């Protein structure tokens, strides 16, 4: 760790808990970094000259005569083009055996963008997956998480989305990644030949959980450098934000704070919003788009973590296995991209919004028909048709192994609508049916 000649070394620690230690010290700033016997720590509370430090890697083995050195600054990251292609830990130190990064150092968790200086997001990010591009179009500057159960292949889907999306940089913030998943990302990035546009900040399950709290800020600080200063389109991947929130609750618990819903700290909303709101479209062209993962417990979205996330992010993507076709699909009912309205029918073909809605509505009718069937009722001809439609729709459009252009998705949707339904059943504006429907009964 960096130390300079004039730094005062304290050697009397008064109070030690599982995550924090307290000592008497003067002239210390709030959120300042320090080292305690070489371990990195941060000031979380000051009462007179009594300073409380949170030690990221835990206090195991910290003695009362530990050497404490205050570093005089908040956590920092050196930023420059040299970040590209590198892997770092939660403190921004290289873990790939490469050299330290040379560049100007920036405090992480910096100020927010003035809302009047933001630009309205307007560029769509095509992924080739119809479950996203057609039904839940993602736009630069958007923040959207995958809501998935731990057994679902969310990291794979996310990696696929990241690599297909045309962005200048991909920054991975891995929190509590299993070593296997870490190696998966490393592997897939290397194999894609895209390593030079990828930067990774990784905290694995082998690292102390509280360290995770630094990861998103590191990733987003690097993202801000490339987006704000280099006008690049940056895609930030944060996985898994549930583990991040868990770390927040650990700290809050150790600081004796009163927990609110689901043992989470009362500030969970603000803590998460501070990160997600870093997603932005800058006026000069750069952008930060955040795709995150929030793992659920048994699909429960009312838990405080997914619930607060849902209120912050601009939509959410649900991944589930469709047993009818035996593939993983993007669930059209529960998934939502709030910013899609900014591009669909504007940057894409004008029939996009109505075709999308009609298909989803009919897919919903199929779900009702299925319930009827399960309850032992007779199906009408319409029910039968919706169910056939749903299966084909799922297979040809919702499945995540689809990789086609948006116009082709729309054409496919029309083919299916025409194959199974009358104009009245589709319920699309008549002008659009005439122009794009290519129906024989028109």
């Amino acid at each position, binding site marked *: 760790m960096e130390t300079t000649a004039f730094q005062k070394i304290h050697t009397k620690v008064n109070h030690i808990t599982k995550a924090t230690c307290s000592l008497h010290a003067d002239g210390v700033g709030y959120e300042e970094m320090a080292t305690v016997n070489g371990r990195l720590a941060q000031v979380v*509370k000051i009462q007179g000259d009594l300073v409380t430090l949170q030690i990221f890697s835990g206090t195991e083995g910290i003695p009362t005569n530990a050497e404490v050195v205050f570093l005089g600054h908040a956590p920092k990251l050196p930023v420059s083009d040299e970040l590209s292609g590198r892997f770092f830990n939660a403190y921004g130190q290289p873990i790939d055996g490469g050299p330290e990064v040379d560049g100007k150092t920036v405090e992480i968790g910096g100020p927010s963008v003035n809302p009047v200086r933001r630009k309205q997001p307007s560029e769509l990010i095509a992924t080739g997956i119809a479950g996203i591009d057609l039904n839940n179009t993602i736009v630069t500057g958007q923040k959207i998480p995958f809501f998935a159960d731990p057994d679902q292949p969310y990291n794979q889907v996310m990696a696929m989305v990241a690599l297909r999306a045309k962005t200048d940089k991909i920054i991975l913030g891995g929190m509590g990644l299993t070593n296997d998943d870490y190696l998966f990302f490393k592997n897939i990035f290397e194999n894609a030949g895209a390593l030079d546009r990828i930067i990774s900040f990784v905290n694995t399950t082998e690292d102390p959980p509280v360290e995770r709290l630094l990861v998103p800020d590191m990733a987003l600080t690097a993202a801000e450098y490339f987006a704000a200063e280099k006008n690049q389109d940056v895609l930030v991947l944060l996985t898994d934000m549930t583990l991040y929130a868990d770390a927040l609750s650990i700290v809050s618990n150790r600081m004796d704070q009163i927990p609110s819903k689901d043992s989470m700290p009362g500030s969970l909303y603000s803590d998460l919003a501070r990160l997600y709101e870093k997603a932005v479209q800058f006026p000069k062209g750069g952008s930060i788009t955040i795709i995150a993962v929030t793992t659920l417990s048994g699909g429960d979205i009312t838990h405080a973590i997914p619930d607060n996330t849902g209120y912050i992010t601009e939509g959410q993507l649900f991944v589930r296995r469709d047993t009818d076709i035996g593939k993983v699909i993007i669930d059209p009912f529960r998934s939502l991209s709030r910013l899609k309205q900014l591009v669909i029918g504007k940057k894409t073909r004008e029939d996009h919004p109505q075709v999308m809605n009609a298909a989803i509505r009919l897919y919903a009718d199929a779900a009702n028909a299925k319930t009827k069937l399960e309850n032992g009722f*007779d199906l009408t001809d319409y029910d039968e048709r919706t169910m056939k439609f749903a299966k084909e729709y799922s297979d040809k459009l919702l499945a995540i192994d689809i990789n086609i252009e948006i116009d082709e998705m729309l054409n496919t949707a029309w083919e299916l609508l025409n194959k199974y339904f009358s104009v009245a059943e589709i319920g699309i504006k008549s002008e659009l049916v005439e122009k794009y429907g290519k129906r024989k009964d028109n």
Partner: protein
Amino acid sequence: MSTKGKVGGIIANLVIIEVDGPVSQNEICYIKMSGVELMAEVIRIGGNNAYVQVFESTRGLKPGTEVEFTGHMLEATLGPGILSKNFDGLQHDLDKMEGIFLKKGDYTPALEDDKLWEFKPIAKKDDAVFPGSWLGEVKENWIPHKIMVPFKFEGTFTIKSIAEQGEYKINDTIAVLINTNNNEVPVSMVQKWPVKIPIKAYKEKPRPFVLMETGIRVIDSLNPIVEGGTGFIPGPFGTGKTVLQHALSKQADADMIIIAACGERANEVVEIFAEFPKLDDSRTGRKLIERTTIIANTSNMPVAAREASVYTAMTIAEYYRAMGLKVLLLADSTSRWAQALREMSNRMEELPGPDAYPMDLPAIISNFYARAGFVYLNNGKTGAVTFIGTVSPAGGNLKEPVSESTKKAARCFYALSQDRADSKRYPAIDAVDSYSKYIEYPEFQEFIRENISPDWIDDIMLAKNILIRGNEAYEQINILGDDGVPIDYHQIFWKSEVIDFVILQQDAFDKIDASTSIKRQQYMMNKVLDVYRTNLKFETFEEVNPYFKRIINIFKQMNYSEFKSEKFNKFEKELQDIINERILIED
């Protein structure tokens, strides 16, 4: 001599200050960090310690830093120039701040000191005036902005002199008043008012009774709100709260719209910034932005300013109400404000109430809603502040403290339903669960009878009934099966679906369907009720579904067409033909 102090302790944005003199609760102070001053508000006092919440990040703040107290509470600056502004929660002008990123302690003035306004006197020399009396007016965009005797004044005054018509700056003296002690008091065009205290410069606050048109059918036609009324919109995320608020802000019949973006997404505010300067206000033909003021404390902006933002917004609303204007205040979302209170309460280690919210949350919420209202001003004119807040209930469960407290305070309830949102039935307001208490007000019923139609209230009740019966029929069909119930059940269900698809559902993104005038709403409601009253004949239940799908499809095409246009009339005729098909079979 103002009180000074020194920073003693820091826990996130709660700072403890040792003071050397008197301080008052809610007093504003500035913490003088090197290079920047951080604004903070006293929220608790214990001995020589003042506990303050800082409206900024406290990163780098050191104990011993000097603090200066101002002697006043958080105040709004009121005067011409508020319209079309984008303020932060403390009324600093966001557009005046330099750079892309917000800088700590960058406190820009709310109004322009050097801008000239064309002033026209209303009052005359020797007139007796009191706080809130109109002295003159300036044109602010298209609003006649009244210059009033400051609300802080007490008692009656006589006008000694008043400025002649001409151009003045906000700080110029435009009138000199004499109080009962014969002292002269100068008055300028700008005044300050503490945001946490209601402005009461009116004579009387009766029960509100004038319908406020919103152009949203499920509100106007089924759960109407009034000028000066209160409403709240709770709903799980993804049910369209924000789209609904935006629709309200675009279409509502009000002179001024104030949007308090309280702890919500920045991109939503950006949408307003981007769209409102382009969109026309159909009532005045001017741009929407000209009647809109935005108070933005987005979710990444300092938490403490979130609470201040709703009060700042309400104070501005009350100020414009005192000019005899109809103001609509939208706050999205009041839950974030309550959460900000919770964070602070937690840091001060207060004993928590339910869900760790402070115990006085219900009182705070109801006091706030009580500031809305329709008023008779002292000069006989009327003004109104209509307040609609959204609530973001945790997990979509309305049995949580913020929703419960708000339900007690607000008179209209617009329940957003997850089921409706899932099946893309937007706006996802559940017409049956929602209510408007104003329908029960005799004075409102009278207003409707005189101004809209004698049958309107009965029609609302009938439509709600049809929806309830349709629901029941649907459940029966689900339990007993399509062929296990009489065909009538299918008809009842589908007739309720017609109301759902034609009246309740509305395409906020379609140019024509987005907003429906009351006249058109009434026309369509009559059409739909006509269908309901027509006895249609079906041989089997299988005929019912496709038949009504056709009816709904034609109705929807009507909704997408200009009212009474050729296209509209054509669809209307087609509709009649379809209805006749089934009546004919009867013959």
